[in-house]
């Protein structure tokens, strides 16, 4: 079983110092907990007006490791298709990630149609980030709230693209359960499944174990807190294997 963290970050966060944001830190926390594979996005790319500058840095950091690059785009910037093609060709990206909260666009924005076409062309999955920071802890900027309704509506448009909802709370994932359970291309990761007590058991009573992928949001959030939610949950071992490893392998297969 290759335990896989589908939601890792490197790079910098503009509002606080991250103490463990090197590849060495990530590899160390993964190795300590039995993980050997991670899909990594750049926090710096969210705030860089030319995200490819930060993506180049991320590529250089990950080069030669077992980690794969998830490519951040702001689809409201010009040259979207060209930029993703560059990511495919230069960085061998494993997926594309968007931040509608930070980049202030709605998921029914016309740019999403172009995004869909290019994702389909390259057979790339799409990470949709509901949040990184708890909204109560925001500093200086207030990301737009990304609602479950608009995320669910996007799945109508993107029926031929694999979608991973990230940064959703347990109750939000459950709120979207009909779409998640019934759409073969829609999945959710677990980094924001933080509560209440028994939240993983609750999530798996409502959501198919085939649809949850383990993510930590490390180095922004605590890795161990995320992992304990699954490792210590009163769920079947088969469900744990799916969430920690098998679903990610299926999600990223070309």
């Amino acid at each position: 079983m290759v335990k896989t963290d589908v939601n890792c970050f490197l790079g910098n966060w503009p509002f606080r110092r991250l103490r463990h944001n090197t590849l060495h830190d990530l590899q160390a926390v993964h190795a300590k907990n039995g993980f050997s594979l991670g899909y990594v996005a750049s926090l710096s790319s969210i705030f860089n007006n030319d995200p490819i500058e930060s993506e180049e840095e991320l590529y250089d950091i990950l080069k030669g490791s077992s980690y794969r690059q998830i490519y951040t785009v702001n689809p409201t910037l010009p040259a979207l298709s060209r930029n993703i093609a560059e990511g495919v060709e230069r960085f061998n990206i494993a997926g594309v990630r968007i931040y509608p909260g930070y980049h202030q666009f709605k998921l029914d924005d016309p740019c999403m149609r172009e995004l869909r076409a290019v994702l389909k062309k390259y057979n790339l999955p799409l990470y949709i980030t509901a949040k990184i920071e708890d909204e109560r802890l925001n500093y200086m900027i207030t990301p737009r709230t990304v609602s479950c309704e608009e995320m669910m509506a996007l799945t109508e448009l993107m029926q031929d693209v694999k979608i991973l909802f990230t940064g959703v709370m347990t109750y939000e994932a459950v709120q979207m359960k009909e779409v998640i359970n019934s759409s073969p291309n829609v999945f959710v990761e677990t980094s924001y499944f933080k509560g209440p007590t028994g939240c993983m058991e609750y999530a798996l009573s409502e959501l198919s174990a085939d649809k949850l992928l383990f993510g930590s949001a490390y180095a922004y959030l605590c890795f161990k807190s995320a992992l304990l939610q699954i490792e210590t949950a009163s769920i079947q071992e088969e469900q744990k294997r799916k969430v920690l490893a098998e679903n990610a392998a299926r999600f990223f297969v070309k």
Partner: protein
Amino acid sequence: MIIDMHTHLWETDAEKCKTQIRNVCSQFNVSKVMVSSLNNLYPDEDEIDRLNRLTYGFMKEEPGLVRGYCYLNPRHGNSIPYLRRAIEDWGMSGIKLWVATFCDDPLVNPIIEQAIEYKIPVLIHTFHKAVGQLEFESLGQNAANLAHRYPESKLIMAHIGANCLRELRPVIDCPNVSVDFSGSISRCDDVEYAKKLLGSHRIVFGSDMPSGLSFLVSYGQILEAELTDEERDDILYKNTLKLFERS
């Protein structure tokens, strides 16, 4: 050993809370929990009495596991005689203040003076919110004001103020203020940041379970933080034992 010094019974779901606390303690070898009972933000005297009796009932059900905080609304005229009964007759171990007043409101003074006399700690909800701040929700500066006013008091600033980057600096020079990191949304290095500013001897382990965030959030943070074994033990139980040494 683990002592979870920040847990709750929510009145509307108290039996479920008890079961969840018992299960967590059993699964993770938590030796003691410090419990307060809560419901409405601005409770009247009857509600305060109901909530504290709920805590007291849990103490009696689980005498080896549960210690109680006496929850008070400082606006109530009966707070001091009520506190005396809770401490002297029911054997409660500390005081819980939530959001009925700022913790440095003069209404709180008699409560702190009584806490000093009893040598018991006061757990103060402190929580900065970028959105949704409550009218009387205390911040680090409120805790610092109270700590300077009563340097002999033992204050615990709950949740490391939520946004520890903003709320911890006001209490750096208040050695009588400890912090718990319950409900701190599991940001990767909050414990290490708190240690840098305050020292590990001023951090205590609390989870805020069972509602809100799960026990595993705080537990994961303490397991992952870069600490010596001695520092981890200090945070997991030794610092709490010192704060509650009267009990």
